[in-house]
């Protein structure tokens, strides 16, 4: 039940955040999608032993989160949900890859630990990028971008309807499960004999709901298209935004900024 409440809270929060009016929210959605895609490609193109090289990429989410007035702690909390998988698979790296790679005066670090940390950092950056995109753009404008990219209408419609009805159905399923839990013995979930009738009834109600939805859509003049509203044209500022981040990502990809900075500092100290 708690995960259903969390899901509903999460969807509503991201919906509300997407309606803010900040400099980032005002950027054309297509530009934000393209910037995010470029950012993700750059991140995953780093090899598994490149750890310090990745660090300057953290400027992107930090600057966008700050400019878009997004709640950092909530985004970080969301991000942690994906971590068990990354840790689960990444933790095998230190076990299988034990050769020394980083040598510091007080410790040595194996290649496995470096690649493990690299996976975690990539996880942080990629998850933050996706969350930042949806929190500053919203599903409707993302759907409008998909339309611009000539994604078939039926898929966009499917995506938006699924999204719209998630809140309704999660609430309904949540109520049903709560009612079941209150009337059953202390069990860890729905007991085997009730799987069919409980979920089956929910499914039948869902199908009937779909018919009612269709009838109400017809009453409102549904012609097979879901209107996502008009999206303004790409402005010069939007192009500069994309170009600026694009150049920065390329610089980070080709120049190891932390190593250069570190050499400079350690050189001066010596």
């Amino acid at each position: 039940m708690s995960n259903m409440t969390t899901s509903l809270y999460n969807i509503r929060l991201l919906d509300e955040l997407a309606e803010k009016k900040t400099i980032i929210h005002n950027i054309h959605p297509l530009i934000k999608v393209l910037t995010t895609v470029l950012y993700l490609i750059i991140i995953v193109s780093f090899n598994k032993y490149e750890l310090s090289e990745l660090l300057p990429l953290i400027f992107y989410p930090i600057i966008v989160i700050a400019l878009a007035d997004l709640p950092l702690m909530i985004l970080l909390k969301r991000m942690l949900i994906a971590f068990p998988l990354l840790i689960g698979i990444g933790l095998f790296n230190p076990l299988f890859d034990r050769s020394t790679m980083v040598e510091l005066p007080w410790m040595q670090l194996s290649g496995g630990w470096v690649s493990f940390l690299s996976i975690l950092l990539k996880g942080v950056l990629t998850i933050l990028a996706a969350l930042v995109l949806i929190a500053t753009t919203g599903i409707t404008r993302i759907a409008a971008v998909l339309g611009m990219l000539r994604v078939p209408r039926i898929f966009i419609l499917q995506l938006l309807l699924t999204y719209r009805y998630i809140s309704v159905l999660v609430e309904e399923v949540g109520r049903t499960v709560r009612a079941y839990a209150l009337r059953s013995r202390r069990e860890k979930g729905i007991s085997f004999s009730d799987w069919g009738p409980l979920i089956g009834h929910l499914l039948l109600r869902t199908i009937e709901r779909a018919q009612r939805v269709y009838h109400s859509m017809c009453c409102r003049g549904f012609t097979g298209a879901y209107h996502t509203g008009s999206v303004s044209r790409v402005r010069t500022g939007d192009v500069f935004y994309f170009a600026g981040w694009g150049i920065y990502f390329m610089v980070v990809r080709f120049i190891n900024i932390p190593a250069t900075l570190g050499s400079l500092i350690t050189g001066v100290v010596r």
Partner: protein
Amino acid sequence: MHMADALISPVVGGAMWAVTAGVAAYSVKKIGNDLDEQKIPLMGVAGAFVFAAQMINFAIPATGSSGHIGGGLLLAILLGPYAGFLAMASILTIQALFFADGGLLALGCNIFNLGFYPCFVAYPLVYRLITRRGYSQRRIFTGAMLAALIGLQFGSLSVVLETFFSGKSELPFGTFVMLMQPIHLAIGVVEGLVTAAVVGFVWQARPEIIKRTTSGETLGSISIKKVLAALAIAAMMTGGIFSWFASAHPDGLEWSMYNASGKEELAAPGGIYHTLAALQERLAFFPDYSLKNQQETNTFAVGTNESWPTVNAGTSLAGLVGGVMTLMLAVITGCCIYMFKRRHKTSGV
């Protein structure tokens, strides 16, 4: 089973995006021809239903633990393979965007692993085959159970292959398979039991729902030949292209060159060649493979150790200091923007 961006390489992510987009485009084309408008809300609401149903914990008898469903097979049974695949794709897209459940670059992998196999392999080749002579509780149970098991085994094997070819994890292929397949056998049993229970119940209560969608009258039937062709393409992409990229040994051209000239590559002039080679190395979308395989020594020799980046205490320290400085600068930049915006707001009021 949702793959994250951090675990895949651009080539694997891009190739799986291309394959998935192809399957989605084909599905759209197939259902676009014979889909009546009434089915559109059903697809959307059924997708939302499966999303919600994924959160229900099912108590597993005699184990004390609980499991949940993926729902790909259930969607295929309710909507048909094409609409089921699109519904699954939209669920996974929403999960990637809103719940950090699987990455955006890994979305192609996730839709393929969790949508393609149940809708285009398990449903037509197993479930429909078993139930084609008519429905009974036993046939529904056998069909759903076997289809769920086979669909999940394919899906988890796909995860292993995609992770392996991406080269981010050091997990050996065999160990990873031995970890993933048995776990997904157990998950498949739960998926099969829940799907069979739900479909069996709906068939008893409203048989026309199950008959209509599985008969393929409204949402199109599926050609086994086309499924096999799609699988062959996917297998060629994974087995052929990826392993060519990933191979620690030389490819056919290099092998024949080695036999002909005694060298893997012909000597190249300096200047622009080295500049371009350095650029290509930087841009390589399979860096993990290039890193370990960049050997000056002869790769044909059996037992040759893979090259290793130079360990240098000075470089390590400079990297650490620089890294900490970069992080500090990033945090300071963020704080400055926050402070500036707050001051701007206060002065505005």
